[in-house]
C-alpha cells in the first residue's frame, strides 16, 4: 500500500509545482488585480462614491440656488453654452453639474439600498422555497404570483403616500417591490443544488438546515445573486425616478438623477441634455456595478480557477 501511494504522489507532484502556501484568499486577490473589468468597474464606482461624498467641496454652485434669468442654459460644448455652467442649467436656472454631483448621493444610496433590501427578501424566500419545497414552496409561489399581479407603481405610490415620503421609506418600498427576480432565480438554482451529493454528504455529517443553507448553498448562488443585484440597481434608480416624477419619491428640490430626468422631461425636445446627462450618470453607475459584479463573479467562480 505504501508503495502505491508513493507512486501516485510522485506522478502528481511532477505535474507542476505550486509554491506551498498560496491560500485561496491570496490567489483571489491576485486575480482581482489582474481582472481589467473588475478594476475598471470598481474604480468607477469608487470615483462615484468619492464624488458623492465630497459633493459640497467639488460642486461649483449651490444645487438649490435658482437664477431664473439663466434658465435652460446648454452645456459648454453646445451652442450658446458657457464655461460658467459647465453642464448648463435646468428649467429653474440651477447649475446642472452641481445637481448631478449632489444627485449621485441620493441615487447611490437608493440604488444600492433598494437592491439590497430586495436581495435579502428575494434570496431568503427563494432559498427557502427551493430548499424546503412542498407547502413552503407553494406558499411562496403564491406570494410571488400576488406580487406579480399587483400594479407595483400604484402600490408604491399608496404606500409612500400613507407613510409619508422620506429616503428610508422610498428605499424600503422600492426594495419591497423588486425581489421577484431574486426569488425566481435562487429558487430554481437551490432546487438544483439540493439534489447534489455534497448536500447529502453535509446532512450525513450532521449539518443542520441553516448550516447547509449558509455553508453549502449560498456560496454557490453567489454568481446568480451578483448578476441580478447589478441589474436591480439600475432598475431601482429608475423606479425612484418614476416615484419622484409622481411626486411621492424624493421631494424637490433635493436632487436625484431620477428626479432630474423626470423634471427635464418637459423640455426634452428642445433641451435634450437635461435628460441625457443624468441618463449618462445612471448608465455609468449601472455599468460600473455590472463590471464589478461580473469581475467579482469571475475572480470567485470555480470555473476560472484552473
Amino acid at each position, binding site marked *: *500500500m505504501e508503495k*502505491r*501511494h508513493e*507512486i*501516485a*504522489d*510522485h*506522478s*502528481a*507532484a*511532477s*505535474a507542476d*509545482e*505550486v509554491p*506551498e502556501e*498560496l*491560500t*485561496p484568499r491570496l*490567489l483571489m486577490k491576485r486575480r482581482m488585480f489582474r481582472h481589467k473589468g473588475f478594476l475598471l468597474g470598481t474604480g468607477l464606482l469608487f470615483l462615484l462614491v468619492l464624488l458623492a461624498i465630497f459633493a459640497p467641496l467639488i460642486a461649483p454652485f449651490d444645487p438649490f440656488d435658482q437664477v431664473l434669468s439663466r434658465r435652460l442654459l446648454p452645456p459648454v460644448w453646445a451652442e450658446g453654452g458657457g464655461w460658467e455652467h459647465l453642464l448648463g442649467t435646468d428649467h429653474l436656472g440651477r447649475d446642472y453639474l452641481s445637481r448631478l454631483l449632489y444627485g449621485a448621493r441620493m441615487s447611490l444610496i437608493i440604488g444600492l439600498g433598494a437592491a439590497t433590501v430586495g436581495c435579502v427578501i428575494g434570496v431568503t424566500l427563494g432559498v427557502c422555497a427551493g430548499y424546503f419545497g412542498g407547502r413552503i414552496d407553494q406558499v411562496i409561489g403564491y406570494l410571488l404570483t400576488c406580487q406579480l399581479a399587483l400594479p407595483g407603481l400604484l402600490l408604491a405610490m399608496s404606500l409612500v403616500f400613507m407613510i409619508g415620503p422620506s429616503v428610508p421609506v422610498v428605499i424600503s418600498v422600492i426594495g419591497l417591490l423588486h425581489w421577484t427576480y431574486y426569488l425566481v432565480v435562487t429558487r430554481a438554482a437551490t432546487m438544483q443544488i439540493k439534489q*447534489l*451529493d*455534497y448536500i*447529502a*454528504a*453535509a*446532512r*450525513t*455529517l*450532521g*449539518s443542520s438546515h441553516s*448550516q447547509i443553507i449558509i*455553508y*453549502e448553498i449560498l*456560496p*454557490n448562488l*453567489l454568481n446568480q445573486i451578483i448578476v441580478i443585484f447589478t441589474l436591480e440597481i439600475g432598475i431601482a434608480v429608475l423606479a425612484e425616478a418614476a416615484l419622484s416624477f409622481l411626486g411621492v419619491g424624493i421631494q424637490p428640490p433635493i436632487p436625484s438623477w431620477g428626479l432630474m430626468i423626470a423634471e427635464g422631461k418637459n423640455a426634452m425636445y428642445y433641451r435634450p441634455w437635461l435628460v441625457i446627462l443624468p441618463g449618462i450618470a445612471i448608465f455609468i453607475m449601472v455599468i460600473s456595478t455590472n463590471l464589478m459584479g461580473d469581475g467579482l463573479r469571475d475572480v*470567485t467562480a*470555480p*470555473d476560472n*480557477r*484552473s
Partner: protein
Amino acid sequence: MTSSRDPLLIIENLTVDIPVASGILHAVRDVSFTLERGEVLGIVGESGSGKSISSLALMGLLPASAKRAASKLEFAGRDLLAMSDDVLAREITGERMSMIFQEPMTSLNPVYTIGRQLTEVMLLHGKGNEREARERALYLLEKVGLPNAKTRLEQYPHQLSGGQRQRVMIALALMNEPELIIADEPTTALDVTVQAQILRLLTDLCDEFNMAMILISHDLGAISRTADRVGVMYAGQLVETGHVKDVLEAPQHPYTIGLLSCTPKMKDNSESLLGTIPGMVPSLVGEVKGCAFANRCAERQNECLHRSPPLREFAGAMGGIRRSRCILKPGWDGEAKAEGLDVAERVNVKDITKTGEANVLSAKNVACHFNVKKSLFGPAQVLRAVDGINLDLRAGEILALVGESGCGKSTLAKLLLGVEQPTAGHIQLDGQDLMATASFERARRLQPVFQDPYSSLNPRKTIGQSIGRPLDLHKIGEATDRRREVERLMELVGLPRRLYHSYPNQISGGQRQRVAIARALIMKPDILICDEPTSALDVSVQSQILNLLLDLRAELGLTYLIITHDLSVVDYMATRIAVMYLGQIVEVGLKEKLIHDPSHPYTRILLDSVLKMEPGEKIPKTEIGGAFPNALAMPSGCRFHPRCPLAIDKCRRVAPELGTDNVRCHLSSEISSRTTEMVPSVSGVEKEVPA
C-alpha cells in the same frame, strides 16, 4: 463474420485540433485504420482519449472551431476530404454511414412520435415515399425486437424505457441501410441485462446486413465479445491495433497491458489486487513531447521522454496486421508482464476483524414509500422504493448490494445513512434505533461515499475545507490540529499535500473521489456506505479507488456496504452479496456461493448478462423478458414473475417470502438442485411498457 474483403473505410493520419482557451487541444493525433465491409472494430480507451472525437470527425459532426486534417479519408471509394459538408450530409451521413449515441434518453426528440422520427430519415434522403418509409420503419422495429411496432410508431419517446429507446435509435440508424454504423458507447447508460441484449442485437444485425461497425466503448468485456479487431486509444493516438484475440490475450503496448490488469475479470477466486496505472492522462493542449504514455509507463526508457515512439507493424497470431506504437520490439515479454502484474496480494480480511459475526447495522422490515402525484388534483400514487427489507451488516465485512437502476438501492442507502426517514420498520445501529441517535453521533459511526465525485464536493470550497468540514462542524480540535489531521488524511488516501488549497474543478475525477473518501474517514467512522463509488470513473482510476478502499479497510478495520450495478466490482470487493429487485431483497449470500451457485432466477440472469472478457466469444443470450417494471405499478404475486423465464402459475398469485435459504423464490429449492440449464424463453423481447 466478414464476407467481402474490400476496405469500406480508409483513414490515414487523421488529426483533429480544437482551439481552447489555453491553446490548441490535439484531440486526435495521427490515427490510421482501415475497416472492411462487415467488420466490427472496437475502439477502447479512457475518457479524454479522443475516441468519440475521431468518430465525430468521420461524421462531420465536429464543433465548428475544430480543424480536421488527414492524408486520406476514404469511404466506399469516395474521398471524404474533398467533400463539402453539404454533400457529406446529403449523400453519406445518415444514409450510408450512421451513428448511435450513448444517451438514449436525450438522443430522440421528445415532441415527435417515434414513427415520424424514423420515417423522416428516409424521406429526407429521398429514399422513398411516406408509405415505403412507414413499412421500413415497421419492419425495422420488429427486427430490433420491439413488438407491436404499429402502436410504437404513434408513441412518443417518453413512453418507452431506456432499452427500448436505444432499440429505436438502432432502427433509426438502420433506416437507410447504411454500410457503416458508428456506435458510441451504445450501452453505457443501460442496465447490464439490457446491455447484453442490445450488443447482441447490434452484432446480429451487422452479420445479417453485412454492415461494418465501429464500436466505441470503455468496457473491455463488451469489446472482447463484439469486435473482430480492436484499437486501443490513448491521448488521441491509436497505441495498439490488431485482432481482438491478439490484443486482449497477448497485449504488446504497456498501456494495453495496464488497462487489462486494471479490469476486474470475474474469472477466478484470486486474492490478488488489481493492477493500477499510476498518474493521469496528460493534457493534450500544446505539443506532446515524446511518448504520451511515458510518464505512467512501467517500461519507460530515457528515450521515451524525448522521441515519439515508432509505429511498429507485425503479423498477429490470429492473422492480419498488428500495430503497436511503442519503443519496445514486438515479442518482448509483454505477456509475461501481463500475467506477472497481479502479484500484490490483498490483505486477508479475516485476520483484521475477529468480530465477524456481530451485526453493526441492521434493517428490520424497513420500507420507504413516496406519494407521487401526477397532477395537482390527481390521486396520489404510492411509490414503494423500498418495501420490507431485512438486511444485516456485520462488522468487518464488505456487503455488496446489487440491482438494476430503479430497484431502490440508493433509497436504501439513504435510509441506512439516516438521511431519509423510513415509512415503516426500523434501522438499528449497534442495537439502537438509528433515527433516535443524535445526528452527530450517527455521523461519527457512518459515512457515505457517493457515486459522482463531481457533485459530491462543494465547488466553492477548497479540498482542505471540504475534508476538514466535519471537524469544523463537530468543533473538534484547534485550527492547527485540524489542518494537521486533514493533511494526515490526505496522505492516507494518496492526495499530494499541494492540493490543500485547490478547488474541486482543478483536480481529476479520481482525486476527487479520494477527497470524498478522506472527508468520510476524518471522523473515524467504522462503517462506510459507498453508493456506486467507481461507476463515474475510468477503469484505471477505478482500480486505484477499489484498491484504496481495500487498503483502508485493512488498515482501519472498516466495514463497507457497497452499492453497485457492476458485478465485476462486486466480485472483486465483496465478501457477501445481497441482490435487490423492485424494493425487495431477492437473495442474500456469501460471495462464493452467490456468484458460483445462484439460487434466484434473477441473480442467475444478472450473472449471465455480465460480459466477462473473453475475446472471440459471443454475447451470451440472456433469458430475461420484459423491461424493468415501473415501481408505481407493482406486478402481482412475485415481483419478478413477468420477466422470469421459470415463472409458474403460483408466481403470479402468491408473493414469495425470503426463506430460510435467503432466497425469495417459490422455486428456489428446485433451481439450486438443477444444473445450469434453464428453460429457454423469448429473449430480447420486451413485453411491458412502462408508463
